[in-house]
């Protein structure tokens, strides 16, 4: 596909050209970043590490109305998003784009989920390559890279004085045209490739995932998990901020007769997640819940869809208040198995 560029001070101008799109970009409240609809292109900055809340919420909002109805009546009013209403997400990090390709498996599986899929189809993903990976990033260990193109329609590189934009799909091309970007040459493409290589070398953390999906089920009843779960708060930080966690609850809400059925993010770290109506809970303690979070990402999901449900963005590590560190857990899980085998 094409090579484009634009001067750094022309970002607002480029975004202003996207009149056919609803444009999303990182926005800050204090130190907390989150993707928001761009209201003032001049306020957008692409000088950031990563958003605290992942952009999964753009496809799968934390609270989403599925349909509306009136109590006592049988008609429902579906609220499926419109696939023809174009959206562009500008500045998404490659890990978060990769996450969509993983979650696609689930939402396109036994029941193609129109809410998620319509949004995905309507959205053009314009990535921003990482030149300085964060302290707890480990994307190369799980199929990503600081300049990974997976799942993206275009990828922006920050070359210091200008942005180089590599388009990867027709949607990306269309975006570049709409934004009125000028053509770039070989020099920019080379500089971008070099930057990507260098960034890869700067990633500090890693985990060799070979054998982990097969091995984790062997630790199912092991005491191994307790060294982490004993300090787990059972809060929702790790899962809510995970770009691949996709669980939801469905509830009905009414204001008088006006009602809606909505779905909301749910998390396997909450005790009520698996609590049965009878009161029985098959995951009664934090041990089972911690085991489930790790095993789902690194064993159950890969078993079903042949891909690890983790993109190495580091959010669960950065934000855990009690230092439950997924890289540390996975590394120790390998030794736990070996010890078990020896004593058996």
């Amino acid at each position: 596909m094409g090579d484009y560029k634009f001067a750094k001070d022309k970002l607002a101008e480029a975004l202003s050209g996207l009149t056919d799109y609803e444009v999303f970009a990182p926005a800050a409240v204090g130190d907390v970043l989150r993707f928001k609809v761009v209201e003032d292109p001049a306020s957008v900055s692409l000088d950031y590490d990563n958003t605290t809340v992942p952009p999964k919420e753009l496809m799968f909002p934390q609270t989403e109305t599925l349909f509306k109805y009136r109590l006592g009546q049988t008609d429902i009013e579906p609220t499926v998003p419109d696939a023809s209403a174009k959206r562009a997400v500008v500045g998404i990090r490659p890990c978060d784009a990769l996450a969509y390709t993983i979650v696609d498996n689930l939402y396109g599986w036994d029941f193609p989920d129109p809410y998620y899929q319509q949004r995905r189809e309507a959205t053009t993903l314009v990535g921003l390559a990482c030149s300085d990976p964060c302290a707890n990033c480990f994307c190369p260990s799980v199929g990503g890279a600081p300049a990974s193109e997976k799942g993206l329609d275009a990828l922006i590189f920050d070359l210091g004085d200008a942005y180089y934009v590599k388009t990867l799909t027709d949607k990306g091309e269309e975006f570049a045209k709409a934004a009125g970007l000028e053509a770039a040459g070989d020099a920019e493409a080379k500089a971008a490739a070099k930057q990507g290589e260098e960034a890869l070398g700067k990633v500090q953390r890693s985990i060799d995932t070979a054998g982990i999906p097969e091995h984790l089920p062997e630790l199912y009843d092991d005491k191994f998990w307790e060294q982490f779960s004993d300090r787990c708060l059972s809060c929702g930080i790790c899962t809510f901020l995970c770009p691949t966690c996709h669980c939801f609850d469905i509830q009905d809400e009414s204001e008088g007769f006006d009602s809606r059925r909505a779905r909301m993010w749910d998390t396997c770290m909450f005790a009520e997640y698996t609590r049965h109506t009878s009161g029985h809970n098959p995951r009664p303690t934090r041990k089972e819940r911690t085991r489930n979070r790790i095993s789902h990402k690194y064993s159950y999901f890969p078993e079903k869809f042949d891909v690890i449900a983790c993109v190495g963005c580091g959010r669960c590590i950065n934000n855990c208040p009690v230092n439950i560190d997924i890289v540390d857990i996975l590394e120790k899980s390998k030794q736990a198995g070996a010890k078990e085998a020896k004593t058996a």
Partner: protein
Amino acid sequence: MVDEKKLQDKARETLSRDDVRRLIGWKRSTYGYEAAPAVLTDASEADQLIFDPTCVQNPASFISLEEKKPVPRGQEPDTRKIAVMVKGCDSRAIVQQLVEKAYNRDDVVVLGIPCIGVIDRRKAEKLFGETGKQVKAKVDKEKVAVDIGGDVKTVDRKDILMDKCLRCRYPNPLVSDFLLGDEVEKWADDDFADVDEFEKMTPEEKWKHWDEQLSKCIRCYSCKSVCPMCYCVECVVTQQKPQWTRRSTDISENAAYHLQRAWHLAGRCIECMECQRVCPVDIPIMELNRKMTREVKEMFDYEPGVDAEAEPLLASYNPQDPEDYIM
């Protein structure tokens, strides 16, 4: 500061006791400016324990986090004690839990640690940047020395310590069975300057402030999960049947949650600041708690978590209690 060798020896001795089942303290984390809580069950693990200004977490939070699983027929419940290491601020949680009869005094062994301040991760990151390296720290009356993977940076105590330390009135544990280290001198005081500052805002400014802050909330409930005073087995905000708080996130439900939380902590919050520390979206939760703390102090001359023999504020009545707050 406490001698780590002495601390580990005491922990080893405590864990070796027949009547102790676990010990909660701190250990070095895998990275960054905060230690990790350590929950140990075996004396052989005691050499993991540390105490330095990275030990920010309140171990008293972890007492109630341990699930009480149904005991199989024919077996006796494990009634052995839990040993907890506490700083001065943390110890107030134990006192308040005792006031509320969350457990009996005999159920816990308290290892007290005099403390002159712990690091605020957010301040450290602003000063030195994020780090993936392991961090150690030392503090004296003036400075904090932060050792980031061998690279030592020194900074004024007031620039890096948690806000709670800068107004600390109880540097020495208010309850303890064994004191690890010598008592330290009180070096700060609390004049509620932060609350004064907040109250300068007009109602419109406050509304805008809370609208902006509470709109960020993702309802991960880390604030209530970490709170040592939020130990109800079933919390009213996550209860599904009947449901009192909706699961949907919007400013209305988010505000309802945070206001419920603030009210439930009135006269109970011991200001360890854990709620605000753990918040992934930086909601200044303590602004609500601090306001309640001052109201309670000024109206009822009550301070939670300082006297284990005291009655809980909301369970006590005095005919002289002011009534001005009743509309």
